[in-house]
């Protein structure tokens, strides 16, 4: 479709429908009715069947005018996209609309204490009993589980099949007695994740997604949405239009809940932004050896941005290979965060012993020092990224697998 036509249509529609005095739910229901909540989705599934570029036109208009989008905070988007891709009509009807409006909050129940790097090693049990699925097991690293209404759940429905073939993918109601959510405190004091314990938790047969034994394929599709989200995250956020009115207030409240787990994320990336100012303020910049370390840090940071830009440009120009750039970027983020922590320590000297609001940069430096270890673990460890890069980009041979044969017989954590 002609981009100008799209721009005209959406602008016209917004003139008719957008009002800051609507409730958030009212506004989002209008969005849905107008077909603007997810323009890239198929026409039969609440969307307009737009291409990526066409959707971008709509998004640009929304952003420029400061219009509130459909709800897409973290796990909501993963759930919605996965249901769209793998759900049957009934499932789509049951979940998609209220997910886009924000009425349904989601969480992602993939990682387990016994399977972190090795997601397909899930040993949460799903058994058919009395006309429903009964779930037993423990999940971990579940962001926002305490706010979630539903969870996307990977569990093992057959222990006699090979590892990747015995998994199934479920939509589970989090508000039931068999599901217990406990906050999981991290070494930096934040508790932005949860543990989720499932004890005879129930899932109706209707909430099996993508078919029995097809869980790994469905999960892989969720993970690819997650990776794409990671790469696109920087471009989102609405413009600085003055935001007054009910819809904004309610939207801010939703955002506050969605973003709460992420307040320490800038620290985990090393707060490179603080380095130069602090080095000057403290006089540490006078040290020639510290200058070398700062220069290494800034070089690595800038080069990683430039490499990401160039990879993006290459991607746009043709090939669709997004994973390598993602893995390289993720690995680089670890190196950068570590070097940043090193430089912050050099700058602080013995003051690095202090933390809390009376310490450097209101505690942000101290929080950085004890948050950076997360960057090289969360979302796939450095080791996993290096495996991916060496195998998928460089084409180096895989190692012999030790986890073939029936899952029941594979060595695992007890």
């Amino acid at each position: 479709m002609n981009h100008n036509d799209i721009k005209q249509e959406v602008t016209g529609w917004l003139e008719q429908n957008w009002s800051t005095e609507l409730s958030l739910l009212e506004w989002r229901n209008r969005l849905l009715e107008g077909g603007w909540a997810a323009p890239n989705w198929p026409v039969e599934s609440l969307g307009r069947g737009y291409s990526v570029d066409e959707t971008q036109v709509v998004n640009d208009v929304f952003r420029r005018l400061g219009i509130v989008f459909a709800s897409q905070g973290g796990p909501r988007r993963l759930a919605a996209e996965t249901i769209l891709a793998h759900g049957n009509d009934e499932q789509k009807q049951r979940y998609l609309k209220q997910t886009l409006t924000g009425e349904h909050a989601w969480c992602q129940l993939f990682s387990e204490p016994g399977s972190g790097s090795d997601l397909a090693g899930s040993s949460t049990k799903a058994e058919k009993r009395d006309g429903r699925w009964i779930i037993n097991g423990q999940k971990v690293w579940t962001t926002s589980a305490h706010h979630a209404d539903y969870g996307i759940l990977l569990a093992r429905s057959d222990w006699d099949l090979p590892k990747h073939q015995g998994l199934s993918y479920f939509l589970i109601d989090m508000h039931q007695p068999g599901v217990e959510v406990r906050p999981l405190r991290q070494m930096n004091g934040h508790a932005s994740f949860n543990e989720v314990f499932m004890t005879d938790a129930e899932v109706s047969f209707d909430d099996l997604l993508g078919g029995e034994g097809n869980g790994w394929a469905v999960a892989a599709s969720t993970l690819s949405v997650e990776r794409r989200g990671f790469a696109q995250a920087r471009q989102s956020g609405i413009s600085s239009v003055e935001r007054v009115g009910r819809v904004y207030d309610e939207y801010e409240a939703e955002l506050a809940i969605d973003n709460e787990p992420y307040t320490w994320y800038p620290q985990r990336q090393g707060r490179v932004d603080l380095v130069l100012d602090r080095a000057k303020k403290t006089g540490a910049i006078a040290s020639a050896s510290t200058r070398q370390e700062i220069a290494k840090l800034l070089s690595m940071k800038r080069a990683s941005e430039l490499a990401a830009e160039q990879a993006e440009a290459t991607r746009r120009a043709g090939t669709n290979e997004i994973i390598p750039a993602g893995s390289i970027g993720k690995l680089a983020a670890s190196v950068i965060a570590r070097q940043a922590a090193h430089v912050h320590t050099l700058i602080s000297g013995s003051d690095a012993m202090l933390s809390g609001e009376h310490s450097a940069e209101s505690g942000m430096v101290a929080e950085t020092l004890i948050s950076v270890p997360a960057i090289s673990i969360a979302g796939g460890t450095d080791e996993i990224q290096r495996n991916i890069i060496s195998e998928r980009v460089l084409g180096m041979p895989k190692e012999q697998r030790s986890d073939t044969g029936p899952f029941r017989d594979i060595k695992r954590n007890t």
Partner: protein
Amino acid sequence: MQKEFTSDQHQFRQSLARFMQAKSTPVDVRRQMLTEQGYDAEVWQQLCAELGVAGIHIPEQYGGFGFGQIELGIVMEEMGKNLFCGPFLASSVMASSALLHCASEAYKEQLLPDIAMGVSIVTLVLDSLDGPEDVGSLLHEDGGVLNGAAKIVLDAASADLMLVVASSSSGLGLFLVKANDTGVNVTSRESLDPTRKLSEVALINVSAQRVGDVDLGNLQEIWRDCSVALAHEMVGGAQHLLTSTVEYTKLRVQFGRPIGSFQALKHRCADLLMEVEFARAATYHAARLLDAGNAAGLAAVNESEAEVYAPHMAKALAADTYCNVARAAVQLRGGIGFTWEDDTHLWFKRAKSSEVLLGGPDRHREWMMQLIEGEVS
């Protein structure tokens, strides 16, 4: 010069290890780190009474056991392994060192015996913990009265007495202050490493006794003693983390095999073992040199061994090693290593705070080079 531990030293280490394993478990450490004082006074007294640690290296004429830096190192290393919470570094190491190097005979006789028994907790107040050259700019004495502040003081909240290094009309001096005197303001500071209690100490017109003279020379000696002791603590911590991490990788299974069978992890652990062995060797060596120096006069050591830089080498190596091992200890545990529930972060934070206490590795390497240049030129 001694090259090996004697069997007495081995036994002493074993006794300490047993005590620490019984009284300084992660559960104990977690309990103590939430208190204001940061340690269990009863356990501390027991440790001092049973094993005499508080005065292990203090000469017998001052009520100590008369052993040296080697035995002090053994204490610090075993404490470091178990993250022992107590005022040992502040009182027995730092304050004692200041007294031994700077105080008059009378004050040594007055103050050291109580430190050696662990009944008096004394802390050394320095307005910089970064380097001897930086000390003396924020604390001043005039007419027997002290003013000024030190931003970071160890265990000030549990100290009875403070030894303050301050500038005066007659140069730097070491001054004695009662911790509960009016004008002594101790404010707890939040510490990156909650097992190490820090305070800000502000002195407003506090009357003080001058117990000795301080100059760059004896400050450097204090720095060397304390750096070597701290290096032992770091080596102990690094060894603990390496051992526990390797054990973890043998048990943890991913992809149907123990993660310790993955070559990337094996090689990383091999490199860390090398680092730990080297930091340990350098640290033991520094303690032995200090003892040889105390016995023979440091000048004699300089000539025969030409390694005055050894304490700085030890502190720098131990700090880098501890931090490297600590990073790996979190990383190789994956997400679990980043949780509060797992104990790894307790050591990680100790590694970080020890890295910068008494000067970071870069400072120590620079001092090392200054001493080497002095020697060779």
